[in-house]
């Protein structure tokens, strides 16, 4: 059984390496993630961010603009995840007694 799991793990690794060989070569400007438009002709996000971030929100750090504005809703979710972790630890480890504040 343990041997089977190891084989499964190795197979998984080989599958991933097979996939990694087919990935676009790292660092070229014409990789799909770096292009100006996608294959379907829709605008690609990253190039738009780099071109317009400074103009649209007076903020040179592109990562900040994406984090807080272009994809701001993700960051709301991210902050909620942290808040959620806080509440969850509160739920697991604290008891609220009658009459007393926590």
């Amino acid at each position, binding site marked *: 059984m343990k041997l089977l799991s190891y084989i499964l793990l190795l197979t998984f690794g080989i599958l991933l390496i097979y996939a990694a060989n087919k990935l676009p070569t790292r660092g070229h400007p014409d990789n799909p993630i770096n292009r100006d438009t996608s294959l379907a002709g829709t605008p690609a996000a990253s190039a738009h961010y780099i071109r317009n971030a400074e103009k649209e929100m007076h*903020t040179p750090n592109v990562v900040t603009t994406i984090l807080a504005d272009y994809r701001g809703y993700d*960051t709301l979710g991210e902050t909620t995840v942290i808040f959620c972790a806080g509440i969850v630890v509160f739920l697991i480890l604290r008891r609220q007694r009658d009459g007393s504040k926590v």
Partner: protein
Amino acid sequence: MVQRSDSIIVGIVSRFMVPLIQLFALYVIAHGHYSPGGGFQGGALLGASVLLLRLTVGEQPSNLVFHKKYGTPMSGFGVFIYAAVGVAAMIGGGVYLDYANLPIAGMEPAALRSLGILLVETGVGIGVMATMIAIFDDLAKGDFHD
């Protein structure tokens, strides 16, 4: 509670370090527009500075900096700032989180967006700081351990 350190050197050095870390953290939050950093990193640094005090000088003195009973309310408040900025944009006539429609008169959209980013990052900073401290306090001294 995790035992405080008995070494005087550790105590004094950490007392000296904490204000510097906090100053740097505030800089990181406020300067996130121009350089690496932002609400999350700054908040985590602020949290880490309080955690350093909790570890070195003990619970009572560090409660003066940030009392443990504020952990959960402040984390809720931080996230609430973020969500409320989005709602304010909705009240201003835009869609959710559209900072260009924040109801503040006399600012062009780009400046408003910049301001919105700052507000949001502040919320994230407060939330992350308080949550980190709250998680540590619960792990180190929840009522569970009674």
